[in-house]
């Protein structure tokens, strides 16, 4: 394939535009496929399957138009600037995560040496936006929701990190591109025809990662910050129209980002056995998308099935079970790494 001879600035602009398009598109795809269609099937809902004829394809468009038409209400006592900035902060962290996720051998915005570290760090920026939203709303339900979110995200950063440490040890690198290549070129006991997706050896880490990311995404069974039956919608309760849409995009965009991260770390990312070079660049995004949809399906399946834990039970789960399991996983990984 030919290399494009374009300047640094143009490349950056193209990359930025692509990222800016991927996240809302990904959020909409996830929202459409899972929130509207998979959930409708699982819950035998008729509404979202109806508009527009075939499979209710019009539902999401209708929802979007509805959001845009809504009046932009801001509470009188709200801290106006913080209130307005909060949704943007939440969405921003989602965009930042995607900057390091490789979609092909050459398709990556910036292959940082500390890609994993960076991705996990920026993904927790969203809690600042959530706190801003809860505090600025001048609403007790929003405040309770925001504080719950803060406590929860702090507790679940650690298991998330520990889950990933196993992968980093095994790959010997924190760059996401390296991790993908390791999986593509790896071998398990001499077999190398499917490479070595880390889910085969890091299945404990994969489980931990899914549980912890479920908490990071504030999805059921860890959706106390939004808890629509208790806090109505938690920190989002005062948001309407377009700002609410931002939170919606942030929620599903982050789900998209975490699924992509899980697919990259554990399922081999863009790599597919037997495809190399230019074809990997062409097929890569599609492969990554297919893998992340599998991960997202698991996440949303749990979301539509389980009830919600209580805040103290959630903390107990994190500190008593997930973190020790994560530490044991690291220990085992270390032992195997040295032994083999």
């Amino acid at each position, binding site marked *: 394939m030919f290399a494009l001879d374009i300047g640094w600035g143009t490349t950056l602009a193209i990359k930025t535009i692509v990222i800016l398009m991927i996240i809302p598109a990904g959020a909409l795809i996830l929202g459409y496929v899972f929130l509207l269609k998979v959930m409708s099937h*699982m*819950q*035998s*809902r008729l509404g979202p399957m109806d508009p527009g004829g075939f499979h209710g394809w019009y539902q999401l468009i209708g929802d979007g138009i509805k959001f845009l038409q809504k009046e932009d209400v801001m509470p009188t006592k709200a801290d106006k600037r913080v209130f307005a900035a909060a949704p943007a902060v939440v969405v921003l962290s989602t965009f930042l995560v995607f900057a390091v996720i490789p979609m092909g051998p050459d398709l990556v915005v910036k292959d940082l040496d500390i890609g994993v570290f960076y991705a996990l760090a920026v993904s927790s920026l969203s809690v600042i936006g959530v706190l801003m939203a809860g505090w600025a709303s001048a609403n*007790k*339900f929003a405040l*309770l929701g925001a504080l719950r979110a803060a406590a929860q995200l702090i507790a679940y950063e650690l298991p998330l990190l520990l889950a990933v440490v196993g992968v980093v040890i095994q790959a010997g690198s924190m760059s996401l591109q390296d991790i993908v290549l390791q999986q593509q070129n790896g071998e398990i006991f001499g077999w190398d025809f499917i490479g070595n997706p880390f889910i085969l050896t890091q299945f404990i880490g994969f489980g931990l990662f899914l549980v912890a990311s479920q908490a990071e995404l504030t999805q*059921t*069974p860890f*959706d*106390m910050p939004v*808890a*629509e*039956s*208790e*806090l*109505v919608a938690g920190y989002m309760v005062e948001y309407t129209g377009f700002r609410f849409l931002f939170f919606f995009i942030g929620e599903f965009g982050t789900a998209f980002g975490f699924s992509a991260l899980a697919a990259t770390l554990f399922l081999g990312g863009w790599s597919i056995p037997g495809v190399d070079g230019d074809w990997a660049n062409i097929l890569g995004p599609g492969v990554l998308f297919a893998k992340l949809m599998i991960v997202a399906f698991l996440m949303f399946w749990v979301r*539509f*099935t*389980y*009830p*919600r*834990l*209580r*805040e*103290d*039970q959630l903390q107990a789960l994190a500190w008593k079970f997930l973190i020790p399991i994560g530490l044991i996983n690291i220990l085992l990984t270390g032992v195997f790494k040295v032994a083999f």
Partner: protein
Amino acid sequence: MTAPTHASARSEGPGWVPQPGVSEPSVGMNVELDTGDMVLNLGPQHPATHGTLRLVIRLDGERVLTADPVIGYMHRGYEKLTEFRTYPQVTTLINRIDWLSSFANEVPFMDAAERLMGIEAPPRAQWIRTTLTELSRIATFLLFLGEMGLQVGALTPAFYGFRDREHVLNLIEAATGGRFHPNFNRIGGLKDDLPWGWIAETRATMKIVLDACDQFEDLVLGNEIFGARTRGIGIIPSDVGTAYGVSGSNLRASGVDWDLRRDARPYLAYPDLDFKVWTHPDGDSYSRYWVRLQETREAARMVLQCLEGMPAGPIMAKVPRIIKVPEGEVWVETENPLGQMAYYVVSKGATGPFRVKIRSASFSNVSILPWLLQGVFVPDVITILASLYFILGDIDR
């Protein structure tokens, strides 16, 4: 960890109340990090209050210090309105007390009027009334079984509850013409006989209901998180429950073996039916769910028995064209889906009642909330509200 007895929990005053699974904050910490109380207004517009119940909750962090239910946002003055209606007109009103099981509301009032007049509905009418009462019980409980899941955070059971209830509502609609407010009872019998094919249809639907119960048992009751959220939460000891006038499934979940279908003055066809009264010793939110689940199954079996033993014959007794009820007063109580439903009807010989006192179950069931909600967390407030299962119309009337 052992759950503290409620007697000891009360004696410590309104401050920190021991809860299972929560360790007591040390005194030194408490002084240092003393936080102000926050008053949280739960309702009148809140999804967990099924309408317009308002709870004024004083919170320390997320722990409830006091909770005061404020009722009356939906008061419609039915007791007064009945004084300006004739007896047949009253059913329209009392349909709307507990709107999920309207048919069951009509039965005790009709019973009261018939007893004052000294007439009795023919057996077939009684059996059809029994069938429809049990169907409305199933409809109410199916909604509860889903709704409770929703309140603890699982969205899916709610949809299943609504879906399966729809089958039962279709049956009620087929027989009475109204999905929610049948207005089907007449003094001395019923408006119509059952439509052709209804019995076969009902048999098929009862199978759906029993399957739905199995599904709820798997999906909700069998779920570990559901157990963690409801076991040991909102324990009503049997003596406290009785003292507050809690009735129905809520009281049976506290281990009190008391069911008016069996224990009251015999009414409808219940003496001829074979059914079990389910109780649970724990008295927590989980056991309330469990008892209602078993009662849904029991009700489905009772409906099948009713269909089996349905006698032939007329559906209306001989009743004068203009109904005048002789002087007298009567207290009629029945076991409604939400608990003990009773009417105290005083007649002065006119076409309408002189005074009607409505004893609705939810009013008493909710009266225990200030006692029950002390010291629990905000999420548990919702669990407890959901597990007590009240209907606002039944509280405010």
